[in-house]
């Protein structure tokens, strides 16, 4: 019986998706640690954002 053909390897779309996902995860971790994009903390005494009707 002939040997099965060698495994062709992981397809390119899986590798590309993995890289994109890795970069996004890294970005999320960096943003979480630097606090970038988060809002400054208000105290409860601050103006409520939805306290009034339009």
């Amino acid at each position, binding site marked *: 019986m002939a040997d099965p053909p060698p*495994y062709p390897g992981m*397809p390119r779309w*899986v590798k590309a*998706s993995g890289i994109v996902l890795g970069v996004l995860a890294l970005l999320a971790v960096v943003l979480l640690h630097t606090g970038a994009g988060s809002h400054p*903390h208000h105290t409860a005494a601050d103006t409520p*954002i939805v306290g009034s009707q339009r």
Partner: protein
Amino acid sequence: MTLTPRLRKFALATHVTFSVGWIGAVAGFVALAVAGLISQDAQMVRAAYLAMEVTTWTVIVPLAFVSLLSGVVSSLGTNWGLFRYYWVLVKLLITIFATIALLIHTQPIEFLAAAAAKPTAFSADLQSQQLHMLIASSAALVALIVLTVLSLYKPQGMTRYGWRKQHEGPAPALPWMQRT
């Protein structure tokens, strides 16, 4: 284990229905998250977060679980298998991740709903939670759209396990499995 054609169709129909429903429900959730975050109308904000809680528990969570379960049944009941093709494996991983993330986010959803139910003003302290809810639900929507695209395009590529299985024993591809 291979399902009969009738059962296979039933499993696939269930999977498609619940998966598409999941996308629609999350899209509605994103709309509520936007309304809750940007609206200046206190009643609108309260209604949005209360509706988000109800939608999560009565619609999104059941849809997610049935979608996951029916997807596993559909895969295992056909020659696609669960670990043989990358697109099926990636779909499985994304669905599991999305379901776990959903369950984790039920806590902040309940927290916001509880805050919305209180008669006091909706404090600015909650703004980061509200923003987080919008980002998380938008990410979930993108992930679910990726799942749909994967299902439709079925990109090529076998896993090493699938390759070995294919060359181990006869698992002939059925006509409906052929790429068009």
